[in-house]
């Protein structure tokens, strides 16, 4: 079972420049959460703060009753064993082949025999579809394979919390779809707590149970997927629907004049697109954290946009409006 991660009032700055401030959110145990935000809003910094690689200026990160920023170096290394992190480029050790990379945490932390290690490593490599590439060096394989190998390494110690730093950056749409399916299946199998940092809205709309949005140095909103997808809050709406009209400009934030001009020009927001069905595990069974489509909207009396949750339950292919796909022109 996954563990809950509670973040309270987290603030981080670099050399006097605040990256983000006062972020409070709770990653529910065993659920998949996505953290979104325009480029350069410190999403990766948040991830690194969460595992204690960077120390926040203020605030608490509580995991199993332990507050990460206050822990000693030694205790921090203990808590980190709960984590598995997939770095942007996989962060594989360049001097070792794929097999040794995945076996590395086992060799360092456990006293298992080589044959036991082989069994675990083969299982994880099988999970990410890399059997047969064991002897290759990280420099000899493609970016997508490096990512999957990094994922296998992150999973090898059976972590309770798995963090993904832009799993879909630099991957083609097909590989992204496979990786997203893999994330859902892994969550079903391991029931660990997942946090995905990305700015790919397709991933954000279909994969997670919860969505958070960082904008302009603070957390604009964090909550269940349907809550954000049906939200009319300008920033959330603009970002999740990839529109040009709204408070986010090319350079982080539009100034007041630009916004006013936009309002005067009578720029009308297009209607909210339908909420897609969440991605289902490939074996057809439910994930523990999965909620029936439309439940949040019904419980909170929110009328989902017309056409939402189309298709029978368990349908895996989700049709997105053309402007939401990678090739479509936003807006």
């Amino acid at each position, binding site marked *: 079972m996954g563990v809950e991660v509670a973040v309270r009032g987290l603030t981080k700055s670099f050399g006097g420049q605040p990256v983000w401030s006062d972020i409070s959110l709770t990653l529910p145990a065993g659920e998949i959460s996505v953290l979104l935000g325009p480029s350069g809003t410190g999403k990766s910094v948040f991830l*690194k703060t969460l*595992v204690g*690689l960077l120390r926040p200026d203020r605030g608490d990160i509580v995991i199993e009753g332990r507050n990460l920023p206050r822990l000693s*170096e030694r205790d921090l*290394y*203990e808590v*980190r*064993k709960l*984590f*598995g*992190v997939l*770095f*942007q*480029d996989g*962060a*594989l*050790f*360049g001097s070792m082949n794929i097999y040794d990379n995945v076996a*590395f*945490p086992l060799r*360092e*932390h456990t006293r298992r025999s080589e044959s036991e290690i082989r069994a675990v490593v083969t299982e994880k490599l099988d999970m990410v579809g890399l059997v047969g590439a064991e002897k290759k060096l990280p420099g000899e394989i493609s970016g997508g394979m490096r990512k999957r190998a*990094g994922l296998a*390494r992150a999973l090898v*110690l059976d972590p309770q919390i798995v963090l993904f730093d832009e799993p879909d950056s630099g991957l083609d749409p097909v590989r992204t779809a496979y990786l997203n399916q893999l994330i859902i299946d892994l969550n079903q199998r391991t029931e660990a707590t997942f946090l995905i940092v990305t700015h790919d809205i397709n991933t954000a709309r279909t994969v997670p149970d919860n969505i958070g949005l960082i904008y302009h140095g603070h957390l604009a909103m964090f909550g269940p997927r349907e809550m954000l997808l049906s939200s009319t809050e300008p920033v959330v709406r603009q970002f999740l629907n990839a529109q040009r009209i709204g408070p986010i400009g090319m350079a982080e934030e539009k100034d007041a004049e630009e916004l006013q001009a936009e309002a005067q020009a009578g720029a009308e927001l297009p209607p909210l697109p339908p909420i897609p069905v969440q991605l289902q595990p490939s074996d057809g069974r439910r994930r523990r954290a999965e909620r029936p489509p439309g439940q949040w909207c019904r419980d909170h009396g929110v009328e989902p946009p017309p056409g939402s949750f189309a298709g029978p339950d368990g349908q895996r292919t989700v049709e997105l409006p053309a402007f939401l796909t990678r090739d479509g022109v936003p807006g």
Partner: protein
Amino acid sequence: MSGPAVLRESGHFFAFCLDTLRGLGRRPVQVREFVQQAWFISSVSILPAALVSIPFGAVIALQLGSLVRQLGAQSFTGAASVLAVVREAGPIVTALVIAGAGGSAICADLGSRKIREELDAMQVLGIDPIQRLVVPRVLASMLVAVLLNGLVSVVGVSGGYLFNVVMQGGTPGAYLASFQALGQLPDLLVGEVKALLFGAAAALIASYKGMTAKGGPKGVGDAVNQSVVLTFMALFALNFVVTAVYFQVVPQKGS
């Protein structure tokens, strides 16, 4: 760099050195990494060290040769050569080679690991890079420096001998017999102590610079450049201090 920035940087460096010192006692001891690194550092430094020390011994013989002949003290050429090579040239050549060949390699290695996020990944996997990577490198560099100093002394003195005997027509017996005239055992020992300190300092500076590299591939290049320059300066300063202390502590022959 402004004043406070320099202070902060040196503070970080000393904290890093203390962390490394603490990592020395921590288990498990990284024997494999240590052996690999020792092998690697020696493989990149033995040949340059030998090639630098032969002409060094020869230059000393050349400098002394004519002067000593005019004074009629040819029999002391060997003594002067031993003194110069063992006391100063050995440790300095060792330092230059360790910093230039070993240190730059360590810095480039750790720097590229840093920017590829390998070090972050290691920390997240619950492994302290200082204990896992830096400590074995520092120990390996110290060991290789000590051994290299021996090699440089032997090769340097042999170079001087060859040059003196073959080229300048000196007497082999006089060259060898005068070895003990000015030099003494503590000279060799202090040379080894110097080499040990140089090895540690070079590896510490290189590791620190590598682990704090930032800004992509260019950052690694800058880090290597700075680490070599800083190490050279630090080693010459360290050499002066150790030599000054040595002369105060150990009585010299003939004084």
